């Protein structure tokens, strides 16, 4: 963990309510895809946790959906503004046991952390594919970016307005063989992937956080191997330890 001041390089809309913010600062504490940062915002008491979407040197990319006070405030910020950020939080995904062709499954704003994960897996010589789930065509983002990594990219929409009609699990059934799953998204999606996936995997969870770095026990959950803090021992849990 580090506490650093970042400067906004750009901040633009991807969809009606999803924004992409690029920042510049000391990213050295970020060691794995699936980790998150915790952002202090003017006038709000708690920081806002957002996953690391991409990382290149001092460049940090976050993708967030404006859903409340904090994320709306972020969406109104512009180039040059500064943010106080705790970086390098959480365990992140562990790629050691992914096998040769893992599938990455993201729903909504669960998609962003899979981007850095995909890059890492590719770097390790693996052949990941990705399933991105959304409600409707207008909400789809980052399809092109994943395609540009040269990996097989499936998009599902619940209403069928883009890509495969249905849920990410529908795509999972038809996407061919896979060695492992990495997923991130709303809890019902995670649960469906847990139930319907045929391999081992890792799942990234959300919880309301007090600190985001393991001090307050605000975000605990029960696992088969004891209590874990989503912010520190998570947000990524192994399939084998999850209790629903």
């Amino acid at each position: 963990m580090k506490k650093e001041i970042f400067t906004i390089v750009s901040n633009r809309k991807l969809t009606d309510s999803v924004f992409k913010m690029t920042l510049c600062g000391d990213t050295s504490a970020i060691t794995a895809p699936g980790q998150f940062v915790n952002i202090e915002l003017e006038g709000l008491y708690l920081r806002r946790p957002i996953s690391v979407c991409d990382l290149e040197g001092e460049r940090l990319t976050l993708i967030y959906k404006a859903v409340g006070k904090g994320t709306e405030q972020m969406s109104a910020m512009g180039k040059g503004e500064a943010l106080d950020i705790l970086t390098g939080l959480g365990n992140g995904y562990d790629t050691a046991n992914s096998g040769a062709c893992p599938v990455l499954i993201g729903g909504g704003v669960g998609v962003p952390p899979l981007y850095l994960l995909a890059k890492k897996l590719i770097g390790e010589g693996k052949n990941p594919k990705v399933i991105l789930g959304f409600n409707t065509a207008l909400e789809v983002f980052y399809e092109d970016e994943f395609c540009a990594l040269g990996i097989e990219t499936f998009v599902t929409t619940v209403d069928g307005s883009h890509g495969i009609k249905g849920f990410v699990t529908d795509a999972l059934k038809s996407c061919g063989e896979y060695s492992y799953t990495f997923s991130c998204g709303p809890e019902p999606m995670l649960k469906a992937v847990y139930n319907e996936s045929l391999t081992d995997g890792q799942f990234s969870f959300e919880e309301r956080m007090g600190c985001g770095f393991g001090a307050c026990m605000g975000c605990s959950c029960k696992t088969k191997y004891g209590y874990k803090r989503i912010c520190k021992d998570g947000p990524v849990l192994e399939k084998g330890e999850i209790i629903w």
Partner: protein
Amino acid sequence: MVNTEVVLSGITLTNPVIPASGTFGFGAEFAQLYDINILGSLSFKGTTVEERFGNPTPRIAECSSGMINSVGLQNPGLKAVCEHELPKLATLYKKPVIANISGFSIEEYVECAKAMERQESVGIIEVNVSCPNVHGGGMSFGVDAKAAAEVTRAVKAVSKKPVYIKLSPNVTDIVSIALACEDAGADGLSLINTLYAMRIDLKTKKPVLANKMGGLSGPAVFPVALRMVYQVFEAVKIPIIGMGGVAAAEDVIEMMLAGASAVQIGAANLKNPVACKEIIEDLSRVMEKYRISSLSEIIGGAH
């Protein structure tokens, strides 16, 4: 050169800044960011006889200038704290610590106190009386002068170390409870614990917290905490550790002027993990600004 030393029941602290129980774990997360030996002392996570998961999540809600928690005393239990957490903490922090203990019956408080009594690193036992009394109808020990005094007496009977009772602010008359604890032998008082509060989520139209209600802390409660420290200081002779919303060196001084001999920092550590460090580093500048040469001399100065 200003003097930031204060004394709590014979224990000299290099400065009055102490992280509050439940907001600093057992120090490890913070030790990553700074040398926690700069802290006056450290009150570790509230410990109960049995391991506890606490309340269901969500158990954090945000408020204007504060937050509500309904963690519910998650801790690994007395045995694990003594065998694993305290030895680890001892490698990070070399000064006497404050053992924050909780219980749902007098016996549980006594068992915790006995174990902490044996821990070399423990300088003060801080008894959190905000738990519901399972043998007394579920009301918190801390809202009833008699129950608070009973806990105090029982813990004192098994402790040679100084015993501080940590008071709940959710009462009509904090002074009567403070006096009852003093009469029962308390060596000091810690106040305040969190204010009972809640938030409702407009999207779900239900309480944010799974437990519905929880404890408010942060700058929002500072003026209430200050008032209680001020009132209690006028009534008792034993030292007070003041807390509730302290977030800056100025607040430390305001708390001490109200009557606190030392000050705990809670929620501020969660918002800003280097809060205690920044406050300690800022103390001498602020003391000079307000012409204070020795902190221990200003205790209760506003009376």
